[in-house]
């Protein structure tokens, strides 16, 4: 009997011994993948080098970099921004002083949707869910005293991402920093906006063109900047499973790769700058398996389908957020435990940068104190837990390796379903992806309300005497007027002829095929506003019409 047979015999003996007792109830991950009560070497496929390898080498299952956190810890990047540029600048300085290592800018909805702060569409929203940026002036204030060659900045911006990127480059120029030295990320992932996040502006085709323009521009001019962060996070937080999150994100990524390649640009010229972004919830092993499976899948598809050759093109670099839908408004301090579990899973899953949400973010913008506690979760994880001490520490776990395989196959199967819809762009336009996510969200909500999906403090162990929390962060009612006044002042002092000329050139360019980034740079340098620039593009391209999905 060889060892494998002996292991199988021993496992059978164990199962038989159990059979007399109460049988173990079947269990599954939240995404539906069944989980056995015990895993053994018999559950793990062979081929260590082909399936796992070493960190920094194909297929990158064990991590994208050779040294991972031994070489450099993940970037601690807390999402923040509210009110005016001055207030947000103060919060960024506070976070950096307390040990944050990268910036992540939250923008208000008018900025994300391409409206100025004095636009009627912007009313009641100026500076509320993020900072208001109208012109280059605001962006200069936002980064006042923060040298752009020394910090890296992530912008959660999509419909107007190209405009914000142009502003960031212009701020660097004004600071005397060469654009080639700036580092950061714009989210710039429009396909998921149509499905789950909602800050789309233009129809699909011109939106994809704008994204390809930024990818091309960064490949040529900004080697340290990620022109896109293909985001599964929003599929997940809209109710999708971990498998849907992974599959739809990869499907989006493949659509972007195809769009840029269709311009005749070689995959290895731009693929190294593609990055990803996900939610990590509290089911630790599901999340670890998800990230390990995605790394392997991405490397394989990029190599075999798209012919990428540079190792950097095959590296699945991702950032993540912990919190979101996994947080509860009931007994909100419990959220610190939830975020901690997600953060641990992210580190065990090999993240490159992380945002840990504050415990009060289920219902409010965090206070300085709750934001600090959220930051501390990552520092405790890094310096006290030991989770970062060795690379990919869960590798070789019979369970984790078996689960990684299962997860990879489940993601592939979901990708085939997208293909059957005619690919991701088509599946988004017809509303198929939206329906898939809504159905799953509804199923989960019914399970929560029935109590079959346990949420501690909500549908199990609920303390009925606990008072519901109150929001502590107060929006400043005078803020919109203050922001509009600054915009008005910029409009009165800028060179009007130069603005008109830049916008006219942009209008002309938008009808053509050339890269729009140089024209956007001219426009923002002239202090044209986000609303003016988006307005010109809206005139030329029109707006996206949401498919009615019930």
């Amino acid at each position, binding site marked *: 009997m060889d060892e494998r047979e002996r292991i199988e015999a021993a496992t059978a003996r164990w199962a038989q011994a159990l059979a007399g007792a109460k049988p173990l109830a079947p269990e599954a991950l939240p995404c539906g993948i069944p989980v056995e009560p015990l895993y053994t070497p018999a559950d793990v496929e062979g081929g260590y080098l082909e399936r796992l390898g070493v960190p920094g080498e194909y297929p990158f299952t064990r991590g994208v970099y050779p040294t991972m956190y031994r070489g450099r810890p993940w970037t601690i990047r807390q999402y923040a921004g509210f009110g005016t540029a001055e207030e947000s600048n103060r919060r960024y300085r506070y976070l950096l002083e307390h040990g944050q290592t990268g910036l992540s800018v939250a923008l208000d*909805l008018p900025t994300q949707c391409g409206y100025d702060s004095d636009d009627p*569409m912007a*009313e*009641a*929203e100026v500076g*509320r*869910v993020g900072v208001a940026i109208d012109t280059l002036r605001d962006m200069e204030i936002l980064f006042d005293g923060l040298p752009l060659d020394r910090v890296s900045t992530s912008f959660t911006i999509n419909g107007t991402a190209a405009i914000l990127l142009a502003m960031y480059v212009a701020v660097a120029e004004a600071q005397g920093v060469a654009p080639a030295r700036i580092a950061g990320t714009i989210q710039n992932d429009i396909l998921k906006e149509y499905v789950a*996040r*909602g*800050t*789309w502006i233009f129809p699909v085709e011109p939106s994809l063109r704008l994204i390809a323009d930024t990818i091309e521009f960064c490949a040529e001019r900004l080697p340290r900047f990620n022109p896109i962060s293909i985001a599964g996070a929003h599929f997940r*937080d*809209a*109710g999708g499973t971990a498998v849907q999150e992974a599959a739809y994100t990869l499907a989006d990524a493949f659509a972007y790769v195809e769009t840029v390649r269709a311009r005749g640009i070689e995959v290895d010229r731009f693929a190294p700058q593609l990055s990803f972004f996900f939610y990590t919830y509290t089911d630790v092993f599901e999340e670890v398996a998800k990230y390990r499976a995605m790394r392997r899948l991405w490397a394989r598809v990029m190599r075999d389908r798209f012919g990428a050759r540079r190792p950097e093109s095959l590296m699945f670099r991702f950032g993540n957020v912990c919190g979101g*839908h996994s947080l509860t*408004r*009931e007994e909100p301090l419990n959220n610190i435990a939830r975020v901690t579990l997600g953060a641990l899973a992210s580190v065990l899953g090999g993240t490159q940068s992380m945002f840990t949400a504050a415990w009060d973010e*289920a*219902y409010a913008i965090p206070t300085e104190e709750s934001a600090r506690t959220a930051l501390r979760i990552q520092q405790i994880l890094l310096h006290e837990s030991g989770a970062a001490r060795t690379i990919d520490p869960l590798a070789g776990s019979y369970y984790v390796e078996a689960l990684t395989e299962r997860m990879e196959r489940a993601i592939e199967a979901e990708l085939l379903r997208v293909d059957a819809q005619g690919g991701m762009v088509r599946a988004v336009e017809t509303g198929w992806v939206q329906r898939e996510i*809504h159905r799953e*969200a*509804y199923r989960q*909500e*019914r399970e929560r*309300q029935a109590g079959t999906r346990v949420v501690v403090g*909500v549908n199990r162990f609920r303390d009925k005497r606990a008072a*519901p929390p*109150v*929001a502590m962060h107060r*929006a400043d009612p005078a803020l919109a007027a203050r922001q509009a006044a600054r915009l008005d002042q910029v409009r009165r002092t800028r060179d009007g002829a130069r603005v008109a000329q830049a916008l006219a050139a942009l209008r002309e360019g938008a009808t053509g095929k050339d890269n729009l980034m140089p024209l956007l740079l001219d426009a923002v340098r002239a202090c044209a506003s986000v609303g003016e620039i988006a307005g010109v593009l809206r005139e030329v391209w029109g707006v996206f019409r*949401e498919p*009615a*999905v*019930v």
Partner: protein
Amino acid sequence: MRVLLVQDSTGHSTGYHVVARGLRDAGHEVILGGALLPREIARLAGEEGAEAIGYRIMDAAPAILVGRLVAELGRAGLADVPVIVGGIVSDEDRPRLAALGVAGVFQPGATLESIGAFFGGLAAARERRDAGSRR
């Protein structure tokens, strides 16, 4: 009853879609209006013959938006169409919404059952009223 579901912005709409399915499963007819300004909501309510309006409000100051919607409904001769708000509503805003005549407010933690039953109650009240006016 015919329920028009609308929201103030496009993002974070999981609850909106979940409630839409919940109302449908509770036997109501649901029209998804998407993200609309108050004026557009009133117009659509008239066109669709909505018998109730469910308004998901996420980020904005709810009293401002609901105040406008109520005014627009009045102008359109639809003052009797009840407005139900869903979302996070602060303690200060609750009496403001009540003063504007909002029929109900559902916050996080509300069950699909309670929402479905509330709309069921509105439908029953509407039937009684219609029956009364026919007598």
